[in-house]
């Protein structure tokens, strides 16, 4: 993949707020959760994870872009996108505890770890897969423009709607889950 910094950030925002969000909403109820934990809390944790992944992801993209400068091809091999998952997971896990989204201890013995790990890894995988093929079909210009979404209005509509309506939808769902 040959991404510009702007393309990296745009791509992460669009994919997380579309594929990542839908995956989270559809699958949260099926991830293993500790006994006695309500579905509402499971949604709170998974949606919180998705948002933290997105926000932290912007910072990670700046780091990746810096590392990309060391490569002659100035590209980002697909496999690095996969390997990034475990690296990105740790700060998200810590942040979720710091923000109180995941209750209790942040160590490996916490009962929420499996829920987090399943959600984080599967979401990362689904988002990565979407970037490998489907996104090119929906937005043919995406790969030609360094991962940015075209400035041409007809092409901009879909990512715009997906990103911003998607984000509003997440915030709404979070608000409902938190009530």
């Amino acid at each position, binding site marked *: 993949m*040959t*991404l*510009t*910094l702007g*393309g990296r950030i745009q791509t992460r925002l669009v994919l997380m707020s579309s594929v990542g969000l839908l995956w989270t909403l559809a699958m949260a109820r099926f991830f293993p959760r500790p006994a006695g934990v309500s579905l509402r809390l499971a949604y709170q944790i998974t949606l919180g994870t998705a948002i933290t992944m997105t926000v932290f992801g912007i910072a990670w993209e700046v780091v990746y872009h810096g590392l*990309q*400068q*060391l490569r*002659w*091809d*100035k*590209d980002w*091999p*697909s*496999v*690095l996108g996969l390997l990034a998952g475990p690296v990105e997971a740790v700060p998200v896990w810590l942040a979720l505890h710091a923000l109180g989204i995941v209750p209790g201890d942040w160590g490996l013995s916490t009962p929420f770890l499996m829920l987090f790990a399943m959600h984080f890894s599967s979401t990362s995988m689904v988002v990565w897969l979407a970037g490998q*093929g*489907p996104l*090119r*079909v*929906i*937005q*043919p*210009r995406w*790969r*030609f*423009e*360094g*991962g940015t979404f075209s400035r*041409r209005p*007809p*092409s901009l*509509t*879909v990512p715009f709607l997906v990103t911003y309506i998607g984000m509003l939808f997440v915030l709404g769902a979070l608000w409902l889950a938190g009530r």
Partner: protein
Amino acid sequence: MTDKLGAGTAQFRRITAPAAISVARAEAASARPELSRLLRCGVWDDEFLTAAGLPVYDSQIVSVGGGLGSFALVDFLRIAGLTTSAITVLSDLSAPYASFVSLARASQLGLEDRLRSDSSSRIDNIWGCPGYAVSEALAERTPAPLWRVLTEPLLSEYFTPRVRTVLTGIEREAARIGWGEMLVRSRALVVRRRSRGGYFVLTQPLDDACAGPSVYRCRHVHLALGHPRPRLAPDLLAFRNLHPGASQAVQAYEPHEDVYRQLVSSPGTIVLRGSGITASRVLERLIHDRDALGARTEILHLFRHYVRGATGPPWFRRPGGNGFAYQPFSFPKAAAGGQLRQRTLALSGDERADLIARMGGTTTARRAGWQRQLRRGRHEGWYLAESAVVRDLRLTPSGRLRMTLARGDGSECQVDADFLLDATGFEDDLRHHALLSDLLDCGGASTSVLGGLDVEPSFEVRGTRSGAGRMYASGIASLGGALAPVDSFWGLTHAALEICDDLSDQGMCAVPGAFRSMGQWWRWVRNRQP
């Protein structure tokens, strides 16, 4: 598919003299005297043509060339909603891949060999999805290509498609978009602006020997003519003039199978010149013949610029060694669609030319198999690399080549060899292309710093606009524009996208937006017409 390999083999024949620059004009004028009057005019009127008695055909857009450049654009336009009746392809090629096959074969690539192109740079699929790796995995029923494309380039070398995979894809897509309905077998002679806007393309039909020249009247015209011919170095040209018919010194893109055959039948020494991907493939073939067929060939490899190691600052450092500059593809990947593309887009003139030159140039891929071969050759003493150029080339009385080499350190030496194989690439002077030469003289076009046509980022040829009509160029003729790797599958597809966007701004076709794109992709999957 095997017999298709022969389709374009006549594309590049042995070169004996510089191509005549005004072939087109001379041919047309000699055939029809009234044409010479017409050819003196830079802008044509419909009445001129009627008076000259030339048959005129109409088309919304004409693509001249008929190779992969035309194919990429026509594919895009069909997907963007244009019907076959709106498009005409003028070509002397029988299939869009004919030239490509010819070049592949000359550079020692058989159907099962792999190109220097990545998985998603599909010339037959505007989305690059599925990539060639997926197609190859399905066709060959093996997950190996998928593993390779997944782990490239960290755990394995870049996946590169087989010639067969590419040809199969083009053949399928050509049938799907109705290529045959749009193709007119003819040789385009000149393109002239029309007084009322648009263009005229003067052509000589090929399938009807009795037919005289005819004219296509179109609103837009696209030029994708490919390389004029292999580059013939001055010493090689002088040698041929001195020894007409001598076959000991050949250009790698000319048919030269005899060289390999003779080296297998009797031991010999070959001098190879060039350090690009073609030189690497020639070396692979020579070493393969040593290993598999028992040839005892000795190879002297000459480098004009001997690269001893990685070059450039830490943030822009290209690997190199043993004479070669290494990069997986002809340009860094980001020059195609990433940050380097953004830089070329932002620059202009000399700065852009300098960046393109630093990213491109003569390079080859660092493939493990080739590295092993050459290591063995150096160790066993039958492969010797030198930083030198040929100063003098002639035949000895015994029929061998004798050449004087000027080494990088300033010394000179004399070398006798059985063959000289020149793999220094293609001629990229537009003046060697009759139609483009005419365009520079009469059409308002000019050249970029790198010698290609001066084109806009939309690939419109600057200075050639005619009313509402626009002239575009893609492929090697657009070298020096805002896209660096113009002469690649990616470059041809990228150019097609930009041209299609520009045409959609003129209201000619629909921009393939998200929903149209998805629908069209599904049609591609099911092999249904666009």
